[in-house]
């Protein structure tokens, strides 16, 4: 809950709110996940009258709710601080980014221990740094340019298609996580 005011601070600093929104959502989600990571908590959750399907589904629904809260905060924040209305396409972009990340992160987290996940993400970050410094000097710029192009397309159909694909990906990830968690032993 401390994170939301921190988000406000970030907004005032004029850092791209898409990036902040995305990061904050991911951090909140991973935080919630790591608290439940301990085997003992899984013992509690699975001893309570919930099916494994419900336990996994609650995480996926939680992601959507938290992302919506973050997005709403950004909207209000921008309104109050910068006195501007945030473009809804940008907000949808944040939501989609988060959903795509969660779709990959969750099944991995369920399958592997979170320590390995942390190591995995450090390695990924390392690879990113190497790539930026060697092959794609301007990787950040390329990404920024592509994102800008994407967000300024006026084609509603393309956006809807992307949204639809993200939703399908999310649902597949959901089902996969349920399958992995069902087989887990505590």
């Amino acid at each position, binding site marked *: 809950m401390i994170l939301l005011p921190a988000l406000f601070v970030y907004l005032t600093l004029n850092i791209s709110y898409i990036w902040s929104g995305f990061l904050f959502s991911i951090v909140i989600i991973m935080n919630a996940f790591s608290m439940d990571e301990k085997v003992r908590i899984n*013992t509690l959750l*699975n001893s309570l*009258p*919930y099916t494994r399907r419900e336990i996994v589904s609650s995480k996926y629904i939680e992601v959507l709710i938290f992302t919506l809260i973050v997005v709403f905060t950004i909207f209000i924040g921008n309104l109050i601080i910068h006195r501007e209305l945030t473009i809804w396409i940008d907000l949808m972009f944040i939501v989609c980014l988060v959903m795509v990340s969660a779709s990959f992160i969750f099944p991995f987290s369920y399958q592997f221990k979170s320590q390995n996940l942390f190591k995995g993400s450090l390695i990924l970050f390392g690879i990113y740094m190497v790539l930026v410094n060697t092959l794609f000097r301007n990787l950040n710029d390329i990404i920024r340019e592509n994102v800008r192009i994407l967000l300024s397309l006026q084609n509603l159909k393309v956006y809807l298609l992307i949204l639809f694909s993200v939703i399908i990906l999310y649902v597949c990830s959901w089902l996969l996580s349920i399958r992995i968690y069902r*087989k887990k032993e505590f």
Partner: protein
Amino acid sequence: MENVIEFKHVYKSFGDFQLKDISMTVKKGFITGFIGGNGVGKSTTIKLMMNLLQPDSGSISIFGLDHKAHEKEIKQRIGFVFDENIFYAHLTLAEMKEIIRPCYMKWDDRLFNFYVEKFELPLNKKIKSFSKGMMMKASLSIALSHHAELIIMDEPTSGLDPIFRREFLDILHNIMQDGKKTIFFSTHITTDLDRIADYITFIHNGEHIFTKKSYQIQEEYAIVKGGMELLDRDTEQEFISIRKSNAGFEALTANKARIEDVFGDLVLIEKPTIEELMFYTKKGAK
């Protein structure tokens, strides 16, 4: 007499440990003590009951229902106590209760407050600051506050002082008065069982050795003591295992009546404690 828990030919293996062909029943309205040494499969059996693990083969039914198909319904009626803290350590007991309360349809705040007061538990201190005894009492308060019909406990008294253990057993005794509850708890503190168990289930090396009424054990099993000259290849077969010394032998038999027939007055026959039962069975298995 109804069976609350039924295991039929359950097999479970992990690595080099195996539960082999476990078939056992736990009867309604009684306290069943589940005993065995360290690493024999007690916690594994309990986890199988709670669906924390799935059996490789065999069936488990609780309240007469298949434990996988009716998982939610079954768990509504079970109160559980584990030997380690499974609650969020950074929360207080009151906060933990608020999280657990909506899970159960039959949650009763009055019962919870009754037990919290009785066990003198602080509602507003973080659980991580609780002593082991307090954590156990907290788990028990929660387990007892939703009118559970079956209470499953995994080594609930380990790490508790003898005074509180006695009080705890009294509490269990009081809970059983209405005849509708069933308690199943695993332990390797044998004196607890002597005090309170109606049935004793003995597991050793992943195998279910027996489930008997406490008094039956006294009637069928015996410690036999006698001189070394009484032992030969034939008579040694009568015993589960034998401890020999210069002064004579001490052995466990599962058939007291037969030993009385075979040896008569030549040997001393004594009632076995559960500890002796475990010791000689382990020896005999080697």
